[in-house]
């Protein structure tokens, strides 16, 4: 029973059940579309939470990696005729290599300086995607061929729902395993105090680099899948505000809570869909929600809820 309540088994099981049963209650393709977007954002946020929530390193530039993954897939499959899966893997590897090169200098920075460094990185990526119009189509964006593996083409919301759901489940499982491993403990030590971690023998630089690369690769995979699913991408995927959206999902759901990230992604993806009805008030309400959650629930939704439940049961 206890094992069932642990996040690694119980939580994962609950997530699997939700993913499996959700299609039964989703009335039409509009809702499937929202669910897919939730899943894609959740994949990115689970990775980002490893970086922000566990290792304590903020990034305001992860949409840059998301955008690079998306464009890598779009260019390699569309312009060069590569197989989709190869494009996805090569894109993710390239983004991982870029993150590896950037990690050392950037992660030396702390706090606001790190925020600015990653922000600058993301903005530069987005400007390059906007300006290299010959390659990327510029601000108008570019079409992306359908996802194809060995002659089978992923088409339609229902198919994509299972692809994204499955990927999310695997990502979550890997992330949960990672944080329960020595690596996860090292990351938390770094979060607590970098110098103290160093003193007890944690190679802080190596672990920070590792988690930065993992989060960048997940963002790239999310971007690739998004590109194939939506069939059309624009440089706005790599924009500063998209980075902010990811970070907000992580913090809203709860830092250092993997399932919190999924919840955060769900809320912040679903909310604008319904706020669209309010049209003129959309931006205003989104800003107000971000501010008030952070002011009143600084730990994020899921950890705050868990605490509330624990206090009730005592």
């Amino acid at each position, binding site marked *: 029973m206890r094992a069932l309540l642990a996040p690694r088994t119980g939580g994962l099981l609950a997530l699997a059940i939700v993913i499996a049963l959700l299609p039964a209650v989703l009335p039409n393709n509009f809702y499937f579309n929202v669910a897919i977007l939730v899943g894609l954002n959740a994949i990115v946020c689970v990775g980002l939470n490893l970086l*922000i929530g566990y290792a304590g390193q*903020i990034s*305001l530039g992860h949409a840059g990696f998301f955008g690079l993954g998306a464009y890598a897939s779009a260019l390699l499959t569309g312009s060069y005729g590569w197989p989709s899966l190869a494009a996805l893997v090569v894109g993710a590897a390239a983004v991982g290599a870029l993150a590896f090169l950037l990690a050392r*200098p950037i992660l*030396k*920075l*702390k*706090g*606001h*300086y790190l*925020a*600015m*460094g990653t*922000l*600058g*990185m993301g*903005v*530069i990526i987005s*400007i*390059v995607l906007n*300006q290299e119009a010959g390659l990327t189509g510029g601000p108008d964006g570019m079409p992306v061929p359908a996802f194809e593996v060995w002659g089978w083409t992923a088409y339609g919301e229902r198919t994509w729902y299972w692809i994204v759901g499955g990927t999310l489940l695997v990502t979550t499982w890997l992330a949960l395993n990672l944080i329960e491993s020595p690596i996860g403990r090292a990351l938390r030590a770094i979060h607590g*105090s*970098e*110098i*103290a971690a160093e003193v007890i023998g944690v190679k802080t630089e190596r672990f920070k680099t590792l988690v930065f690369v993992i989060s960048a690769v997940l963002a790239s995979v999310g971007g690739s899948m998004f590109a194939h699913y939506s069939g059309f991408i624009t440089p706005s995927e790599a924009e*500063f505000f998209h980075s*902010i959206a990811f*970070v*907000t999902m992580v*913090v809203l759901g709860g*830092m250092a809570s993997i399932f919190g990230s999924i919840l955060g992604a769900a809320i912040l993806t679903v909310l604008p869909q319904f706020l669209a009805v309010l049209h*003129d*008030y*959309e*931006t*205003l*309400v*989104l*800003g*107000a*929600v*971000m*501010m008030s959650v*952070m*002011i009143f629930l*600084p730990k994020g939704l899921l950890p705050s809820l868990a605490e509330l439940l624990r206090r009730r049961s005592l």
Partner: protein
Amino acid sequence: MSSQFLQFLISGITVGATYALVGLGFSIVYNSSQVINFAQGEFVMIGGMATVFLMAAGAPMPLAIALAVLLAVVIGFALGKFAIEPARGAPVVSIIIITIGASIFLRGAAMLVWDRNLHHMPAFSGSDPIDIGGAALLPQSVWVVGGMVIIVAALQVFFSHARIGKAMLATAFNPLAAQLVGISTRGMLLLSFALAAGIGAIAGILIAPITLTYAGVGIMLGLKGFSAAIVGGLGNPMGAVAGGLVVGIAEAMTAGYISSAYKDAVAFLIILAVLLIRPSGLFGRRESERV
């Protein structure tokens, strides 16, 4: 000096002065609260937009400007009071998100109260360019740079002579010690938000006749101002001014000689270069982490 170079220099200094003012706001707020206020750019927008709409409603320009600055100051104060103060002690990420939320909120409010269109504001004293060695100098550029110089000078006097300015400096230097000698550090926090908002609004009003103004104008201006503050060393107001000019001039030169498409990237490339070579900024103090 070729007239072309002079032209780029003039436009670089003009925008640079705006970045400097925005960066100044970042530094003032950071000093009294250790908060990076990502909504700083929105005050630039509020200054410009409020002036345009007050003038459209029939207010004479000086009155419209005064009211617009006042509006920004009130909103800045409210932001400190209702969003930052209740969240004191929260992790840096949470506070960053609060201020980003505030900037989105303010932008949304501006689109609602005013509109989403581009607006032109008339120049303060005509728009006939003055010829300087073959380069054209807009009278408004003189206003922008002059305004910046006056504000910087006034701030110098404020921080070195006024009692309350000294109290703000003391809070920046050591909040606990400041509190012990009877300075209301909470009051200083609110004051710094109001002051930074006012300066941002003035920057927005000064530059609006040159660049046009709209609800989203604060995004890039805010980020560039932030770059200015970081280049100069966070929390060093004069550094922010120097940083603003560096970013503005580099941007104008890039646009002129290399590629106008990549001019927006320049500020961020400078940032990355400065952060990697001198992580505490050109004029910042080195800080060491306490365990």
